[in-house]
């Protein structure tokens, strides 16, 4: 097997500056799966920043991926603003009670301090990982954009209805969420991390293009501009079906789009001359349920398309690496990119 000649940090640095790479970077979205590498229960991983950081250090040492990606749940920002989450002992948290179940509740929303609740867990995880391995790999922190955060504040069903019935409330929640996201992105950067913005509820599986443009896009643009002003590349991940909203996503100001349920060749045709692309080995069908051979096959196809992506390509997973994914399957992504993704 061909050996890497660059450290992950060097490779990503070259990727961002347009320098020479030895191979495509490989970033499986190892999120809660990191806990499994250390045999730590998910509930503990999600609520203890030092443990979360240590799980990511161990996962990085196991896999050698090109970015560390810290994350527990999309409702963490909403939680800091007042939404109640339930944390099972060994599974991801879920929304127990949205903060703004009644529209009048919006007056009770909190603009949190940067380290409140789950946000503080993330910051400690970033600092822990950066201290241990920050010289060889960049540490990113994934958190929800304003639209997904507003869905966590209001309940997704209700927010969907608000887009018609109570647009003022929707925009109020989005504006407040934007401020909190900006604050947190600053805290991530100050802790030595790189923000990655995820907006799963704004997916084309839920919204049409017109709704994405009105309710998701302006807030993404402003958040991305805020991050860019800190001198950082902007990474946007939206899972689900994004074909319908891809044109609008291109206007969000991200340097790198991480994609899920869209063919990478379609994304290449429509977007590769404007933005770098990342993705999209299928999480459930392939990483969880497939074999290493299935993974290699997908990686091979994706790398072939990646070579035609003018602004760069990162081999990634379509969405979160499923928690119970066999280690061999994730390892196969790295092995595959070394075999099929050479650029030197």
């Amino acid at each position, binding site marked *: 097997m061909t050996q890497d000649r660059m450290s992950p940090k060097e490779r990503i640095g070259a990727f961002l500056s347009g320098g020479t790479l030895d191979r495509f970077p490989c970033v499986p979205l190892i999120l809660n799966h990191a806990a499994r590498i250390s045999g730590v229960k998910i509930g503990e991983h999600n609520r203890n920043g030092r443990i979360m950081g240590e799980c990511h250090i161990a996962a990085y040492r196991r896999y050698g991926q090109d970015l560390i990606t810290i994350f527990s749940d999309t409702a963490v920002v909403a939680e800091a603003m007042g939404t109640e989450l339930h944390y099972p002992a060994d*599974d991801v948290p*879920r929304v127990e009670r949205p903060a703004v179940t009644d529209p009048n509740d919006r007056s009770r929303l909190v603009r949190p301090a940067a380290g409140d609740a789950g946000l503080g867990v993330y910051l400690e995880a970033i600092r822990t990982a950066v201290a241990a391995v920050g010289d060889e790999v960049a540490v990113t922190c994934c958190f929800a954009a304003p639209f997904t955060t507003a869905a966590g504040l209001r309940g997704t*069903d209700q927010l*969907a209805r608000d887009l*018609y019935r109570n647009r003022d409330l929707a925009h109020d929640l989005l504006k407040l969420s934007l401020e909190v996201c900006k604050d947190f992105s600053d805290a991530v950067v100050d802790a030595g991390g790189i923000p990655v913005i995820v907006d799963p509820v704004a997916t084309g*599986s839920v919204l049409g293009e017109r709704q994405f443009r009105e309710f998701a896009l302006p807030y993404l643009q402003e958040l991305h501009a805020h991050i860019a002003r800190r001198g950082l590349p902007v990474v946007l991940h939206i899972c689900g079906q994004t074909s319908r909203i891809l044109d609008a996503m291109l206007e969000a100001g991200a340097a790198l789009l991480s994609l899920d*349920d869209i063919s990478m060749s379609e994304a290449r045709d429509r977007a590769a001359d404007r933005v770098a692309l990342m993705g999209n080995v299928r999480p459930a069908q392939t990483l969880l*349920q497939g074999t290493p051979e299935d993974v290699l096959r997908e990686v091979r196809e994706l790398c072939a398309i990646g070579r035609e992506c003018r602004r760069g390509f990162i081999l990634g997973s379509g969405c979160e690496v*499923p928690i119970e994914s066999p280690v061999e399957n994730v390892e196969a992504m790295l092995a595959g990119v070394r075999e099929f993704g050479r650029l030197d």
Partner: protein
Amino acid sequence: MTPHTDDMLKRLAQAVVDMDEEGAVAAAHRVIEQGLDPYVAITEGLSRGMLEVGDLYDRGVYFVPEILICSDAMTSAIEVLKPHITTAPEHKPVTVILGVVEGDIHDIGKNIVKIMLEAAGFEVQDLGRDVPAEAFVAAARDAGSGIVGLSTLMSTTMKNMGKTIQALTEAGLREKFGVMIGGCPASAAFAKQIGADGYGQNAQQAIALAERLAARSTAEEPIPRPG
């Protein structure tokens, strides 16, 4: 059908398509005032509107927010009409027991499928979300026969689909029910693996699958459709 009734049914359907809750409710009240058949108003008026909404959704004209609001219009109108229904349906509608499996609370997909199944003439028992296997079994026992629909968005909870099917089998109920699964981590291959009868990738496929399963199990009595 008189032109008058026909006009009223079109009005009910259009109110649903137009996301016009007030208009749908007003039309429902007029149905009662004019002594028209409230059951027909639902199956041939409101439901037809909802089926058109489903078509608009498939074609990418309507999206999730629209479906929810159209459905609210229909539900509000049904609430006006239901107390006045005296006609029993000609055929007993097929029961579909729907739920998001244990551990998962993402229910938008399941809610859309429920809306479209009801528009298509099924009777839906919605168990909600985070539904343990035992609850599916209890509902199945009560219903006697029909279809069970399992949904999940998370890969961590997919195993609970298999667990539910196993529980149905152990309770001696599996043969009485068609079992369909949905949700993006699942697949036709996964359906086969866990012994489900099929996988629906979207609401349209779910309805088509439900109709196939219903026709299979009730060959002498096909499910009632509006019109």
